[in-house]
Structures are given as structure tokens and as C-alpha cells.
């Protein structure tokens, strides 16, 4: 009995485990391997780090040049810094805009909440690529935003937003705002109103109650939402390549170019590995908080 149950368990566990091992984890180790190879002109365009000598001994050649280039060539350092900075400030903006929205949603009557939730989730279902494209029509030089501002007399010349870093910020904030609002709403909704009531009974003004009770208790939502925006934003490709300027240095774009334009796969692998190392911290934080959220 115990045996068959055990075997049946593995029938459930093994298929997803094996699939993810093969298509998710193994590729990373493979990338790591190639990041130590040398770039050569052949197919595939890199040397094998394991070679066999005449007497059938296995030789391991680790070429650290690709990683050295990450430090010596300015473009990579700049790209990492620029991506981190862009992601950080977009996340902050998302938080500042998303918190009031989530807060207001948590105060809405239950029936309204369902509609609001649908309204927030719906853009998430519609194409990301098309939403970024749609933004282009709004922020173009002769787009709706400039037309509106000119009409209102707030500006005398159209603002140049397209193909600047500002466009990247706007793009990320616009596309990722729902990812911030949803976890925030989830924690704010669970907040026990009796706590606020107690605070107000004890003479605490609303702003004080907010700082002492609401804000600390919504911290898991703040962290989960921030990570959910920050991590993909660092590696964003579509937004900088459609909205950003031609020379912007988002790391996702640098990687793409290294791969498709320069065909230097070992360097691209090294860039990717360094990138993963950079993201391990934020991902671990996110995992920790999402695991806690699921358990509660």
C-alpha cells in the first residue's frame, strides 16, 4: 500500500520537476558553461570548454576573458547601472501611484471592488506589446498628450518624450502599475478595521493611525509589489527598444544586441550570468514574501 502510494506520488511530482529541470535550470548551467568559452567563427560560435587530449584525458579550459570584459569595457557597467536606476525609480513611482489606488480600492464596497479588480486585471490580459505600442500614440510629439497640453496653454512647444529616457520611465510605470496594485490591494483588504478603530478610540489622528498601523501591516504587499515591478523592469526589452532612444543602455537591449547583432555568444552568456547574480537577491526576497503570503 505504502509503496504504491509512494510511486503514485512520484507520478505527480516528476513530470513538472523534470520539465522545469530540462527547460529552465539546465539551460542556466549551460549558459554558465558557455560564458567561460571563447568566441570563434563556426557553428556553434564558441569553443568547447571540455576537450579531449590525444591520451583521452579530459581537459577543462576556463576562459575568464568574457567576465573581465564586463569590468573593463565601460558599456556593460553603464548598462547595469542604468537598468538598475531606471528600474528603481520606476518602481518607486509605481509604488507612489499604486498605493493610493490600492488603498481607495480596499475602501470601496465589496461589489464595487470586484468590478475594480477586473478593471485592474483586464489590461494585464491584453497584450503587453500592444499596450506599449498604444502608449506611443499618446506620448508622440504630435500625440494626444501634447495636443491636450497645447490646447490648455500649459506648454508652447510640444514636449519631446518619445525616444528619451522619460519615455522608458512612463512605459514601465504604465505597463507594470497593475503588478504593484494587486499585491498591495490583497494586503490592504485583509487589514482588520478594528485596529484602526482602536487607534482612533485611543485618540490617534487618522494620519498617525495610517503610519503606525496601515503602513507597517501592508509592508508585505509593498515588498511583493515592488519586487514584481523591479525585477522584470531591470531586464525589460520591449519598452526601451520601442519607446527609448536609439542609444539607451538597458541591459536587456545590450544582451539582445550582443546576441543578434554581434553574435558574440560567450560574452552574451557572461552578461546574462552576471545579470542573474545581480537579481538573485531581489528574487529571493520576492520568493520569501510570496511563500509567506500563500501560507497565510
Amino acid at each position: 500500500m505504502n509503496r504504491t502510494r509512494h510511486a503514485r506520488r512520484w507520478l505527480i511530482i516528476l513530470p513538472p520537476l523534470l520539465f522545469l529541470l530540462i527547460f529552465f535550470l539546465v539551460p542556466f548551467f549551460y549558459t554558465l558553461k558557455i560564458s567561460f568559452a571563447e568566441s570563434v567563427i563556426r557553428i556553434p560560435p564558441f569553443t568547447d570548454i571540455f576537450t579531449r587530449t590525444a591520451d583521452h584525458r579530459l581537459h577543462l579550459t576556463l576562459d575568464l576573458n568574457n567576465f573581465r570584459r564586463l569590468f573593463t569595457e565601460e558599456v556593460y557597467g553603464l548598462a547595469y547601472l542604468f537598468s538598475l536606476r531606471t528600474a528603481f525609480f520606476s518602481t518607486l513611482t509605481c509604488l507612489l501611484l499604486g498605493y493610493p489606488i490600492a488603498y481607495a480600492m480596499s475602501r470601496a464596497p465589496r461589489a464595487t471592488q470586484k468590478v475594480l479588480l477586473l478593471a485592474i486585471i483586464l489590461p494585464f490580459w491584453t497584450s503587453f506589446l500592444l499596450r506599449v505600442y498604444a502608449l506611443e500614440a499618446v506620448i508622440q510629439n504630435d500625440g494626444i498628450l501634447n495636443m491636450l497640453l497645447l490646447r490648455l496653454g500649459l506648454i508652447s512647444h510640444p514636449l519631446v518624450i518619445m525616444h528619451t529616457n522619460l519615455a522608458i520611465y512612463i512605459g514601465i510605470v504604465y505597463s507594470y502599475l497593475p503588478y504593484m496594485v494587486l499585491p498591495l490591494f490583497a494586503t490592504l483588504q485583509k487589514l482588520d478595521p478594528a485596529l484602526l478603530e482602536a487607534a482612533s478610540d485611543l485618540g490617534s489622528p487618522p494620519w498617525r493611525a495610517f503610519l503606525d498601523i496601515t503602513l507597517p501591516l501592508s509592508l508585505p504587499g509593498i515588498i511583493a509589489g515592488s519586487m514584481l515591478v523591479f525585477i522584470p523592469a531591470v531586464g525589460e526589452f520591449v519598452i526601451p527598444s520601442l519607446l527609448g532612444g536609439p542609444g539607451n543602455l538597458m541591459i536587456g537591449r545590450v544582451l539582445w544586441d550582443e546576441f543578434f547583432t554581434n553574435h558574440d555568444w560567450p560574452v552574451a552568456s557572461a552578461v546574462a550570468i552576471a545579470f542573474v547574480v545581480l537579481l538573485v537577491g531581489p528574487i529571493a526576497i520576492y520568493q520569501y514574501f510570496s511563500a509567506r503570503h500563500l501560507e497565510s
Partner: protein
Amino acid sequence: MRRQFSALHVAILCLGIGVLYVPIVVLIGYSFNASPMVNVWGGFSTIWYSRLLHHQNLLDSALLSLEVAMCAASIAVVLGTLAAIALVRFARFPGRFLLSAMVTAPLVMPEVITGIALLLLFVSLLHTFSWPHRGFFTIVFAHATFCIAYVTVTVQSRLHGADQSLEEAAMDLGAGPGRAFIDITLPLIAPAIISGWLLSFTLSLDDLVSSSFMAGPSTNTLPMLIYSKVKLGLSPVINALATLIIVAVGAGVICAGWMMRRAEARHELEMHEAERLNAAPRVPDLRERVPRAVRSPS
């Protein structure tokens, strides 16, 4: 104290959620613009929609994307549900941590990285075994990999909420664990499985980055085609196409949501009815007094 829902809250919501929809509404408006200059209004017209129908490349790509999304979502829904069952029902097994990490990581991992990593693997597999050639199947596998994460998360939270005592009752009445799961728990988590499939389908349909890495010379998915056109600026044909996609997906999601809510309501009504019928002579539940270990010898 009742939670107040003040005018300020309403204003914030209208503004915040409104802004999310402005670009989409503008896009839909422009798709009916007769002028080929996208930003100059030249009167109402549906000319770009009829142009779409004669765009053979576009139709081919759309068909390919639908096929890919169908396959990827189906693979993801099976594997993702299995992973969710394993993570929720089996408290300890070797590799549990690995599985849960691998399931959630693709949710946040930038696609450029996973795309490159998977491509490197496929290229060297091709070099060593002359298989697989980049194309349909490599795209499907790449999409399924990140879709599994979404299915698992959706099903997981539903499984947490599902009442396991019903399944135990079925087993007490002689059903095997497999039978009990299929008859009792599967219908309970079906809404999550369906929404997991739908979410995977739309994610796959929309994916640009992974597809670009995985595609062979002759496989051009719809997002890849759109991207190559959009890269050159706004295009009225793409506006029309985008409108069609957005309206179709939006309508699909709202319909699915509505149908699920109805099924849910019916289910709750039945449960309520059953409870009412059961309530009359309440027999003390002895099982509560028996330690769990004794109850289900294993």
C-alpha cells in the same frame, strides 16, 4: 467604525484606472481613422480592417501564434496543475524546494535571460544530436516553461482553499485516492485550471522575446511580425489589428469571468442546500476526537 469610501477615493480610482485605459481607447479610435497619417484625423473609415484581410503574412502569423498558444497552454496546464498538487498536498519530498523555486522563478525572471539560456541549450543539442530544429516546437516549450508558473500559482491558491475533508469522506466511503481526487477535488479546482489555461493562452499569444530567440527562419509569430512593423513607428493596419485583438481578448476574459462566477454561485447554493439538509439531526463527529495518525493508517 465603517470604512468610509469618500469622494477622494472615487477620484483617485477614476483617475488611476482611467489612465490605464486612455492609450487603449486612443488606439481603438485611431484604428477607424481614414487618413494614413495616424495622428491626423481624416474621417471615419474601416479601410484598415479590410486591408488586414488581404495581408497574407499577417494571417499566417496569426494562425501560427494561435496554434503555438493552444499547445503551450495545454502543456502548461497539465504540468502546472501537477506541480500545484505536489506543492500543496505533499508536505515533504526530495526536491520540493527545487520545484517550488523553479515554479515561481519564471514569474519574475527577465525573459531575455531565459530566452538566451534556452536557445544556447537547443543550439548545442542540435549540434550534437541534430535535433531539435528551431521552430514551432522550441517556441511551444519555451512558452510552456513560463506559463507553468502562472498555472501553478493560480491552482495552488485554489487548492489551499479546497476542503480536504470532502476528499477524506470519499475515501472513507471506499474511493481510492485517485478516484476521490478526480470526483471531488478536480471539480473544485476546475475554475482555477480554466483560468490558468486562459492566462497561459494569452501570455503565449503575446510573447515576443522568447519567440524571437526560439524561432527558426520560417516561423514568424504574430508579436514578432507586429514588433518588426511597430519598430518603424505607428501604423494604421497595426491599429486595426490591435483593436481586434484587444476587443477579442477583453470580451473573452469578461465572458469567462462571468461564466465562472455563475458556476461558483451555483456551487455555493448547492453546498448551502446540502448543509441545510444535513443540519437536522447532527451526529457528533467522532473523527474529530480520533488522532489523525489513527484515522488514516499509512
